[in-house]
């Protein structure tokens, strides 16, 4: 029987200070670039200057003679050392996979495509040698847009695919779409698009691969969101047995979806290390990171909403086009989530959805924080367009359409249950926190004075983890917990923190469940030899899935320890408890048996054969958790802006968040995740764009061109937590990593649209830098 510690004594739910901070604040963190191994070599890549070209000739002779150069691998040599199959795209289950190699052999497909790997004694020497490689190209027309991808007269980027259409259009229909549109008073149509932007972690990609010829083992120190996933890809592409690849990860300088598995460059470095039997390190520089690490979000939608004059949304028709970039990536994998999630927390009963993927000469489409976020952007922008067309208030239109918990069917038209949903409460709460009628008065006064104020809201839900699947297979997240001889509890997880404070939050849960102090728990991450299976951190699955697994694993360990203690003390397990690192209870001698003493006595008893068979003396327990009853994260954001009609600059005057991410493990960590996500959303709308010219040259390859938000761009963000509806008996933590980035862009765009409405400007896109705002306001002509 489990006795819960009283709330006042619990670590879970309080802002326990981060375990990670003492090392990170004193310069003692250890990122890949901080690790040096004896005999370590440095890698640099020779990259294509063309977006689309045949590689006719590559002359590395001069480079091979350059000082410090140890080896140069061109595409053919690398192809001999590695397998082209087994990469990330296959792991994602992409159906239509072209043939290509880690380094280019006969063709380059984007600016920055790697054609050769130089390995030298220093990074500077490797980069010097790259400059000495002579490559001859025959340029091909670049495919840079949807129209060009559909143009059969342009060359196929992958000849074996025969065209630049990666997949689709594939259509799926939910509910009675024809009936919904027949019953509509009006149909609101729009083409809404998201622009290309990207993760930009402060630390780029990085790997240090060290092959040991004696053991035949390759050890890769990686910057990764999951060591197991990285190991699978490295092993597959190097055609090595899984147990001969060990992946280690320590501190990671952010990722936001970018650092999954192993990229072509990272696998190439592993291959080079195996070939040379020396450690090889590659630290991506910022230009490489911005140009070729991966980009996201470039999607466009033709949408139609069937609505009544009262503002009820009966159904939607959606045609999506996703620009997958050059090499196979994440694009095919997100379609099903965008489709499933696009009804969001709303009652609409009909949806037709089709998606087409195109291939272009741009960086590969990667996952970026809330990769499916376009469903929220399109829906929430469309709702405001509906409100504008009907002359209704956008908040009222949302309230009219949001699902109510007591009104069946509490289910998205696409299938998922909306059990426990609090979206409507979040919007109602927002109307209490922000005085919309008063703002409308202020707005009218400001408008009369020639000032453009606007307010925007957006409401969303996020499957973190989402409702429990009604049919197997369910996916499990494993945590292993063990009790050490010093009485500390070790918790092993495949989650790989890169800013999310997992080492703090898992320890909070484990300490409470097991009955030790927070400092007595050690969270072990980042070593394929130690952590259980699992793909790693991503999809906001940490809180519910790993948190839940840790809760159950440490409970199981506790039960095991109490049973063992009961054997040793000849007492009943039900009379015992673990408190502050000791087994306590009526009849325990000396008022308590400290855990180190228990472990020692258990070992002695086991050695002496005094423990009855069947008693588990392993002092270790694992649990694979399926997310329990699951549930949604979500909420409503609200933003107030002022648009300067002279400069086109948008000032964020206020930003409010009402959110529900279940039971909070660590409120300060939760709020940090929300604010960070909102800041990325602000960047996406007002600053960031991965820009190409028509020839496929990349225009945003430095921080002077790719603008990240700074302290003066991000306002203070007011966060209000909503009380959650518990669905599970034990685990009601929900993920919170992605929501801010999912819902901030439509919130800000809706506010800007509201501000500039008097000018007739219609916001149908996500990127709203000053020039675009002035165009939309009619202040300057459209550049086209």
């Amino acid at each position, binding site marked *: 029987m489990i006795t819960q510690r009283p709330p006042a004594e619990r670590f879970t739910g309080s*802002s326990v*200070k981060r375990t990670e901070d003492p090392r*990170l*604040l*004193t310069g003692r963190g250890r990122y890949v670039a901080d690790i040096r191994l004896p005999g370590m070599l440095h890698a640099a890549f020779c990259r294509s200057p063309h977006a689309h070209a045949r590689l006719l000739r590559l002359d590395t002779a001069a480079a091979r003679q350059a000082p410090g150069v140890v080896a140069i691998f061109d595409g053919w040599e690398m192809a001999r050392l590695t397998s082209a199959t087994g990469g990330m795209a296959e792991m994602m289950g992409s159906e239509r996979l072209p043939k290509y190699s880690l380094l280019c052999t006969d063709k380059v497909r984007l600016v920055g495509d790697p054609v050769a790997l130089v390995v030298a004694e220093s990074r500077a020497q490797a980069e010097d040698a790259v400059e000495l490689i002579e490559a001859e190209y025959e340029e091909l027309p670049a495919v840079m847009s949807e129209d060009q991808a559909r143009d059969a007269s342009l060359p196929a980027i992958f000849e074996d695919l025969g065209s630049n259409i990666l997949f689709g259009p594939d259509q799926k229909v939910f509910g009675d779409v024809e009936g919904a549109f027949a019953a509509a008073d009006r149909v609101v149509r729009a083409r809404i698009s998201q622009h290309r932007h990207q993760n930009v972690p402060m630390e780029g990609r990085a790997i240090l691969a060290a092959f040991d010829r004696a053991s035949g083992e390759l050890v890769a120190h990686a910057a990764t969101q999951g060591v197991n996933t990285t190991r699978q890809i490295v092993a597959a592409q190097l055609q090595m047995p899984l147990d001969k690849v060990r992946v280690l990860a320590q501190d990671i*300088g952010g990722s936001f979806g970018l650092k999954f598995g192993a990229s072509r460059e990272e696998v190439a470095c592993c291959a080079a290390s195996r070939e040379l039997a020396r450690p090889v390190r590659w630290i991506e520089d*910022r230009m490489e990171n911005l140009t070729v690490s991966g980009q996201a979000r470039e999607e466009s939608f033709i949408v139609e909403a069937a609505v009544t004059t009262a503002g009820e949304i009966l159904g939607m028709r959606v045609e999506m086009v996703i620009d997958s970039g050059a090499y196979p990536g994440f694009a095919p994998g997100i379609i099903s989530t965008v489709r499933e999630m696009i009804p969001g927390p709303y009652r609409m009963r009909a949806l037709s959805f089709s998606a087409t993927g195109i291939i272009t000469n741009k960086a590969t489409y990667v996952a970026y924080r809330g990769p499916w976020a376009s469903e929220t952007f399109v829906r929430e922008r469309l709702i405001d367009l509906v409100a504008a067309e009907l002359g209704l208030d956008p908040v009222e239109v949302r309230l009219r359409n949001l699902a109510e918990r007591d009104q069946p069917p509490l289910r998205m038209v696409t299938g998922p249950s909306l059990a426990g949903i609090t979206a409507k409460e979040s919007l109602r709460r927002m109307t209490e926190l922000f005085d919309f009628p008063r703002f409308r008065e202020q707005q009218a006064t400001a408008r009369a004075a020639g000032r453009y104020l606007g307010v925007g809201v957006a409401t969303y839900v996020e499957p973190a983890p989402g409702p429990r699947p009604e049919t197997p297979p369910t996916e499990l997240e494993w945590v292993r917990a063990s009790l050490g001889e010093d009485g500390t509890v070790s918790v092993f997880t495949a989650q790989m923190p890169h800013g999310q404070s997992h080492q703090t939050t898992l320890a909070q849960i484990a300490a409470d469940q097991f009955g030790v102090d927070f400092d007595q728990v050690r969270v072990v991450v980042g070593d394929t030899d130690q952590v259980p299976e699992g793909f790693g951190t991503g999809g906001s699955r940490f809180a519910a899935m790993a948190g839940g697994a840790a809760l159950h694993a440490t409970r199981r360990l506790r039960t095991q320890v109490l049973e063992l203690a009961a054997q040793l003390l000849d007492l009943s397990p039900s009379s015992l408890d673990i408190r502050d690192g000791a087994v306590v209870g009526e009849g325990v001698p000396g008022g308590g048996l400290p855990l180190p003493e228990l472990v020692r006595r258990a070992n002695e008893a086991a050695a002496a054969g005094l423990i009855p068979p069947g008693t588990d003396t392993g002092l270790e327990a694992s649990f694979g958790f399926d997310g329990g009853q699951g549930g949604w994260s979500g909420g409503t954001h609200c933003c107030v802006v002022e648009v300067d009609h002279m400069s086109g600059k948008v000032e964020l005057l206020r930003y409010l968040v009402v959110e529900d991410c279940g039971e909070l493990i660590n409120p300060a960590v939760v709020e940090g995740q929300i604010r960070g996500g909102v800041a990325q959303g602000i960047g996406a709308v007002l600053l960031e764009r991965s820009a190409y010219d028509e020839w496929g040259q990349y225009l945003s390859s430095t*921080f002077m061109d790719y603008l990240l938000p700074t*302290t003066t761009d991000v306002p203070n963000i007011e966060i209000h937590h909503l009380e959650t509806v518990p669905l599970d008996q034990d685990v009601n933590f929900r993920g919170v990593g992605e929501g801010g980035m999912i819902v901030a862009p439509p919130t800000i765009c809706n506010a800007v649209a509201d501000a500039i409405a008097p000018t007739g400007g219609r916001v149908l896109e996500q990127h709203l830098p000053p020039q675009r705002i002035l165009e939309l306001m009619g202040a300057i002509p459209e550049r086209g």
Partner: protein
Amino acid sequence: MTPIRLTVNGQVREGAVEARLTLADFLRDQLGLTGTHLGCEHGVCGACTVLLDGEPARSCLVLAVQAQGAEVTTVEGLSEGDGLSPLQQAMRDNFSFQCGFCTPGFLIQAHALLRENPKPTEQEVRLALSGNLCRCTGYQSIVAGVLAAAEAL
């Protein structure tokens, strides 16, 4: 190779460097002071900020030979032993950082700010830190940490 001699975190350090070697690479690769991070290597992100003769400087834009005879303070020099300085403690108390990569630059910049202006306003903190990029936090927690440090000092 050019011999250089400078004071880093109060200790005299010597080295022999190529003229093109940056101060950041010298600190990290030759002195093993890897607390100074390289986030862009073109002077924008601020992760590599160190104090050079007392003033914040981007160590990715300074050549090691230019630091000849200079006094350099890195993040490792902000606290003694295993403890945290009042600024670092305030940053910890306010959950200022997440992944930690931008952290050394912010700490150095904030340290310099508080030395010049011990009681800055929020707006002054924001302006002083506006040349440092953080991708994780949205900055509010960093600003709060600096203001709390000012309060504590």
